[in-house]
């Protein structure tokens, strides 16, 4: 009989090693993420709720016109009325932070994997791993590196939600028609000029679709993040579930849905505006 491979032991040791040896890096990451989330939270919860709701309505109108704006207004008013305003804004702060980190890391990674088949063949299985590994599993190391709170919630959300941004950035750039790339080369473009003047502009709709997916996925992590102490509406959902309060669970769940629909419609209409070729 072959003895069991001590995989779990190795992983434990690796995590422990990371924790002791690069904890300054983790502290820096923790501080940065913590500061970003706090700033968003402050901006979103400081002014009176009605003011924030009106600003969101105006933004929705600018991005997506009347129907979405109306939904935003009524939906957020309902959330406010039900008493979930502050926690919903905490959740939004977490989602926005996760989305920004995903874009900042994901778009360059996507560009990089579009530039070489070898990089793509390394990145793709890693992304598969990140998306299919049950999210609870990487909550544990996240907690041991960043302790409890918003920060490990953001990190877990990023790991779970970043793949679409990377994948679709890669796809968008690879989909730029070959004859256009050839034309850019024929006139003597440098690789950077080609990227900035041709490939990224043409890939923007696809990249935006990836960012939309990333935002949706990080919203789906809200309840799981609340298990490791992330503030927000997920906490209420989790409490309702553990105490079998169906009504409360529905209210909190509805707040998540409203937030999700608003974010989805607004980001999607940004994609559409780009697609229709407006200047």
């Amino acid at each position, binding site marked *: 009989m072959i003895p069991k491979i001590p995989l779990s032991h190795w992983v434990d040791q690796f995590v422990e090693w990371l924790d002791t040896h690069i904890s300054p890096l983790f502290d820096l990451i923790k501080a940065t993420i913590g500061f970003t989330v706090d700033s968003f939270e402050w901006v979103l919860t400081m002014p009176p709720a009605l003011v924030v709701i009106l600003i969101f309505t105006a933004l929705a109108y600018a991005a997506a016109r009347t129907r979405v704006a109306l939904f935003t207004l009524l939906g957020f008013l309902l959330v406010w009325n039900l008493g979930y305003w502050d926690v919903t804004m905490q959740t939004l702060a977490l989602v926005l932070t996760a989305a920004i980190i995903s874009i900042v890391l994901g778009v360059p990674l996507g560009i990089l994997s579009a530039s070489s088949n070898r990089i793509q063949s390394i990145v793709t299985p890693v992304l598969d791993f990140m998306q299919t590994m049950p999210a609870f599993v990487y909550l544990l190391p996240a907690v041991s590196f960043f302790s409890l709170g918003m920060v490990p919630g953001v990190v877990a959300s990023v790991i779970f939600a970043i793949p679409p941004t990377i994948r679709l950035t890669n796809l968008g750039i690879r989909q730029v028609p070959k004859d256009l790339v050839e034309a850019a080369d024929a006139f003597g473009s440098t690789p950077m000029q080609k990227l900035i*003047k041709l490939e990224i502009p043409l890939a923007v709709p696809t990249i935006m679709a990836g960012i939309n997916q990333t935002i949706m996925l990080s919203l789906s992590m809200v309840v799981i993040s609340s298990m490791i102490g992330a503030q927000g509406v997920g906490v209420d959902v989790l409490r309702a579930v553990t105490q079998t309060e169906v009504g409360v669970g529905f209210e909190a769940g509805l707040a998540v849905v409203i937030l999700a629909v608003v974010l989805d419609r607004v980001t999607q209409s940004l994609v559409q505006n780009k697609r229709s070729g407006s200047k």
Partner: protein
Amino acid sequence: MPIIEVKGLTKIFGPNPKRAIAMLAKGLSKDRIYQETKLTVGVNQASFTIEEGEIFVIMGLSGSGKSTLVRLLNRLIDPTDGQVLIQGKDIVKMSKEQLREVRRKQISMVFQKFALFPHRSVLENTEYGLEIQGIDKSERRKKAMDALELVGLKNWENSRPDQLSGGMQQRVGLARGLANDPDVLLMDEAFSALDPLIRKDMQDELLELQSRMKKTIVFITHDLDEALRIGDRIALMKDGAIVQIGTPEEIMTNPANEYVERFVEDVDLSKVLTASHVMKRPVTITPDKGPRVALQFMKEHGVSNVYVVDGARKLLGVVNAEDASQAVKEGKKLTDILIEDVPTVTADTFLHELFDQVSQAKVPLAVVDDSGRLSGIVIRGAVLAALAGSTDLEVGS
């Protein structure tokens, strides 16, 4: 000194392609090399020179390697072997930076499917080559506007490419190629995606532009008609190798081998088209009518002859306008002025067989069937139009 000099230029596709070089040198065929090595020969030891200011046409059927060859000239594809000297400098040996300089200043390219950038306006497309050189905005705008004016697209500069017709899009492609004032313009099947009439216009305009600009143009096409129209010299390609280089006349009159001969013959329209392809519906009259009626018919149809046929459409002869008006004055009958000696041909006569007749006859040739019935007439203009490749052929009844 020739502006472009190509020596033994070879491109072989596949892994580790160098191993096929020796086989090519030994004269093994493309098929044989593929069988033995699974390598595909794209271009096989091409050598030629291009003089400044000429239109050099590279012609071949699809798969002959012509598109690969033109991409070797600006190294969009890296050659496996050989040299490409542009004004004496071998671009095959150049670094990426040097190559970029050559592409920016000396060689530009026009593509078959236009390859315009859809997110940029016509003007922004045209100035692309100048923009990436870092030329400042006002100067490059001015040059781009000049180039657009040159191709007849003034006032379209703010349109998007997809708002333009195919012909106009390719004018933008041409303007983009001309904007940075290159020494050499590569045109890869530049007009092949356009419909025939637009294509002809573009060919004419290119020739007209060329008479003013005196660029060196390397023009790729699969169409002999196009090659003959615009080429100063033509290189014919087959299986990646150049089989003949010469002026259009030389290629037509003195084909280097059987392949060229077949190629040239295949597309010789005068040996393909027959009288039935070019004949038109004749204006006819029966002999019982008077000369006044004949004159009236000519006036109505804008012709100077009417063909006289009997009830079964059997051709009796022809009456011309001069004789008819004379006959009206003198009160003669139609049969008195009938010219019976009408040149006739059958419907399946090839055009090259009726050149003599059509050029000498005073009236259009009559096309008759076996039993002498008139089925159409052949006028000189229609024969010329057909040979020039006009698709506007109508078949008379």
